[in-house]
Structure formats: C-alpha cells, structure tokens
C-alpha cells in the first residue's frame, strides 16, 4: 500500500517549501490584522517548520527523520535557508531546529482555566523573514523543486513520498504553473507519488478553508487553480487528519485558504499519538 513507508532516520523523507516573495505580498492580509501577506506567509512557514521539528524532538535532541528546505520566489529565485543554514536547499531537521535565524519572544493568549485568557510569552523560532519584491516566478520555483525532489528520491528511493508545500497569493507571472505541478506530482518513490500542498494566502476576507474535497466554495480562479494543483491526502494521512478535523471528507486535498496549516505535521505517522487524556 502506498504512503505507508516508515519515516525514520534510516529512511528519511523531506519537506520543501516554495515561498512566494513577490511584490504583491506587500498587500494587506484579508483578516484585518494589519499585517501584510508576506508576514502571513513567513509566519505560516515558521509555524509549520516548528511543528515539523517538534515531531522529531526526542528529549533535548532532534532525530533526523526528514530534511526541510525552502525555495523563495520573487525578484529572483532563492535556494535554501539563509544564515547558518545557507548552502544546500535541503537541511536535516536537526540542523534546522538548532539553527533558526533567531528566536523571538512572542505573546500568545492562552486559556487561564477560569473562563478568561492569559498572555503568555513563548519562544518563537524564525527561519524565514517576510519578503515582497518583484514578480511571481512560480513556474520557475516548481521547476527548481522538481530538480531538488528528483535528486532526493534518487538518494532515498524507498522514502515516504516528499511533500512540497507552496505558499502563495496565487498569481504566477511566468506562465501557467498547473502543468508543472502535475509533472512534479508524477515524481514518485517506491512508496507513492510526491505530494503537493498549496496554501493560498489572500487579501480577500472570508473564513479560512482547510483541506476541502471540492473547489465549490473557493473565492477565485487562483484558489481554484491551486486546489487543482494540490494532491488528495492519501488514506493514511486522512485517517490521522481526522483526529484533528473529524469532519474532513474523503477526497480532501492538501489545500488551505488563509488557514493555519501547521497541523499538517500531525498527519504523518510517527509513533504513538498524544490525543486523548492530556
């Protein structure tokens, strides 16, 4: 059965983020937060990476069960992280976890257990800063991803299929990305085809949408196209997704609209789950 390979140090998989850093990302988010889309994208990526690191944390150590990489696309294509992680596009998760650009203190509102909320300061590691410049060469980014993922699969032919997460406001300026995304998804390890997820960060207001099974309620043609470019969640991920999202439908795709996709990290089977009885 596909998508059942063990994700382990001896058989790692990888996550590759494609990050829209084009000029249009300077526009405000649709959530009245006062933040712009570039900030929304950076926070989304940093949140998902955090969760991915958590999933490999063992005590004080991080086990290299996967690699994480970023490709930014805007003014130019930027391959890989910056700072201490600069170099290869894909870095082992231990290096990613141990070498963020910086760790910020951010405020978080938490339930105080008595009907109110408390402000708690949390340490928030940052790997990706907001950027907004130039056009949106999404096609070029997907081609670059194709090369990186091909090489990874050559090295790890039995791996759980790599997951590519494209975070964008949807408006490619270098052609139609859909056929390229189709090609990217035809790449496969012995365990199944590459999974492509798309997170649409928009200036439009509206309810966040996460893992829909149809494009019926999507707000525009860009969202619809990104939906089509997104892989259906394989049954193994769908099963785990249901513990966070019980109402998720069969055929749900790896697509989100103005949503927090950090829970994605929990859709991967890495040992006994902590859900009940916290």
């Amino acid at each position: 059965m596909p998508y059942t390979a063990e994700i382990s140090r001896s058989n790692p998989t990888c996550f590759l983020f494609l990050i829209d850093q084009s000029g249009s990302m300077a526009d405000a988010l649709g959530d009245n937060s006062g933040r712009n889309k570039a900030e929304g994208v950076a926070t989304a990526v940093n949140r998902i990476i955090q969760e991915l690191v958590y999933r490999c944390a063992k005590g004080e150590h991080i086990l290299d069960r996967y690699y994480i990489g970023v490709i930014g696309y805007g003014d130019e294509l930027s391959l890989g992280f910056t700072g201490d992680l600069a170099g290869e596009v894909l870095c082992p998760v231990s290096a990613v976890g141990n070498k963020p650009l910086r760790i910020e203190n951010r405020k978080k509102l938490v339930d105080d257990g008595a009907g109110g909320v408390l402000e708690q300061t949390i340490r928030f590691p940052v790997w990706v800063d907001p950027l907004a410049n130039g056009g949106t060469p999404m096609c070029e980014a997907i081609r670059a991803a194709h090369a990186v993922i091909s090489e990874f699969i050559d090295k790890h032919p039995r791996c759980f299929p790599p997951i590519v997460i494209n975070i964008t406001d949807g408006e490619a300026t270098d052609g139609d990305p859909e056929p390229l995304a189709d090609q990217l998804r035809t790449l496969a390890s012995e365990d199944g085809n590459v999974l492509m997820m798309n997170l649409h960060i928009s200036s439009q207001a509206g309810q966040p949408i996460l893992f829909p099974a149809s494009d019926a309620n999507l707000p525009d043609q860009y969202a619809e196209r990104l939906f089509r470019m997104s892989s259906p969640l394989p049954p193994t991920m769908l099963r785990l997704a249901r513990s966070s999202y019980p109402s998720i439908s069969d055929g749900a795709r790896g697509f989100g609209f103005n949503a927090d996709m950090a829970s994605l990290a929990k859709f991967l089977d890495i040992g006994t789950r902590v859900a009940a009885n916290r």
Partner: protein
Amino acid sequence: MAADQKLTIPENSIQWRAFQLPKEGHSTEEYEDACDGNVALGRFAVADGASESVFARLWARLLVKHFVGQRCVEVDDWHKRLPEVQRQWQEELASRQLPWHAEQKFLDGSFATFLGLEIFSDDSGLLWQAVAVGDSCLFHTRGDRLLCAWPLEKSDQFNDSPRLIGSRTPRDEVNYNRALWKLPQSGAEQQLRLIPGDRLWLMTDALAQWFLMEYESGRCPWQQIDAELAIQFYELPSSEHRCKAACGSCAPATQTGADEPVAPETGMSELSTTQTNTPIMAEAETSTPKPSATQPNIPEAAAKQSNIPEPAATGCGAAEVAEYPQPKRPDDRFDVDSGAPEAAEDQQRFERWIGQLRRSGRLRNDDVTLVVVQIV
C-alpha cells in the same frame, strides 16, 4: 485485597524474563517503551511512551520503576501516588537548559500507557491483580488455554489514540474513572488465582495486537512465542527493596514464611467461576482453541510441546544460577534489568523472530516489549 492480608511470596515461586526491541529502522535511543520487574514484591510493569511527547522515555521508565519498586504503593491507590512520579520527572528535567523545541514540549508534559501487575499470596496460594491505562495488555495463560486477556480483549480495539498518563496532568483531572482500568474490578469478589506453570504475559500494543489476532484465528500465540524463543528464565536473587520514599510502611522485603508450595488446584475453579461476571475476561472454558498436532498454523515445536510448561523448563538450573549471581545487571542498551545476562540467546531469537513477523506484515512496526512471568 488489603495490604495486611497479603503474605510474602514464597521464595523462588516466580521467574521472569523481559524482551525489548525498538522499531525497525530506529535505534535503541529511540525506544520509548519501558519495563521492569521485582520478584520479591511480585511487581511487574510495562509502559509505552508516546513518541509525540518529549521525554516520554524518561516518563515511561519512571512509571515502571515507581510501581515495581515501592511496596508502600498499593495497587488500588497507585494512581493517587502518581504525583510522586510526576515530581521526579519534573525534577529530572527542571535543572536542564532546554532548547526551544524541548522547552515547549516540557510544558506540555510527557505521556505513556501503563500496565502494572502484582502477584501476591494469601492462605490458599498466589493471586494476581493489575492496573492499566491505555493499550498495553496482559494475558494469563495456563497450558493451551488463554484464561484472561486484559484490558483489551479483541485485536480491533487498538487505535491511534490510546489512553495515556501525563507527567503534568493534575491528579484530580486525569479522568481516572474513564482511563484507569483495574482487575479485579473494585468491590468484585473475583479472585485471579495462579498455579505453577501459569504464565502472565505483559506486552505493549503492537505485540499484544498480534497476539490477539493470532488467538482470534484459532492459534495459540503464547505457544508460538515459546517455540520461537525457548525462553530462558534466570533465577535472580530477590531484589532488595527499592522504595526510596520515607513512607514508614515499607518494611524491607523478606523471604520468611510460606515455605510450603502453593496449592495448585485452587486456581482454576476460582477463575472459571468468576469470569462470567467480568466481560473483559476471555471465555476460558468454552472458546479457547485446543491446539492439536494437526493444526496447520502452529509451529511444529509448539504443537509437540507439552501444554503445561514445565517449571524451570529451560536452562535455569543451579549451574546457570551460579554463573549469573548478580541480581541487578543494568542492560546497557535499554537501562533495564531484563532478568537475564546480556546478549542472551533468547533475546537474539526474539530479535530474529520479531524481524520476521514485521517483514511478513503480521506485526505493526512499533517498539516491542514483552515481559513473561512464570509461576514455578
């Protein structure tokens, strides 16, 4: 049974052996189960640390050590003493300078399933009782019969979200009523008797699920295990009492009294008459398959084997005892005294056999822990 009614377990009436193996493709550092045993107190435990939580391995180890090491902790009240273990966990970690990813998860706490077994003695012989949270399982076998499967009794009862004990969960909020199972159930008159040759098998979820699937297919998985492993029980000198708490009620374990052999015939009738009151008990008398030499799926060795295991059947004579006189030999790989010398042949057979089961797809790839307790 109240503590003051319990008698000291007769010396040399229990043997045990533990087997541990991490997930395929994982190293022993990633192994997050734990198990331990204490023959003098008749206590045995397994725990399965939830790998999504941080420091789960430490939490699982502290849970089993606390249970098997402390006579003062009554099985009935075990959950009320959990704050002691939670405190140990916190103290162990609080002093460390934690990286960001560990810090947040430290605040969330660690989680584990738990299964604790106590064998004790009364005027008529040996009995057992147990507590469990989650899907680590206990099986009581006698010869070719499975007398009890607990707390889960069907292979389809396993899922991704077992009940777990948290290292930070407040005591009055742990939903013990929902999460904690106890056998015999509180207030029940049921007694779980043991006779020589009986075995109690403690397993974490993957192997337990395999065990129940085999059983549901009409096979005797405990005899398969026996045939595959040829378990070598080593008689360890009684452990010293390891209670660290200054509880006052902890008298050191002694081996006085009850020199007479336990009365074997008392066991079966007690168990079979009470089992109908307890839905989670397997149908000991009626539905247990009777293996025969012609049954195709039972390994030949198992089929030929006597149904009632011989006490001290394999390699635990006086010579071996003399050869391995040290009671506490930390296992380098697992930091657990597994009841046998390192690199024991049966551990190697265990690793080979588990590997075969995994490759055949019959055993989920997960940490595997097996504790076998034999009544001599």
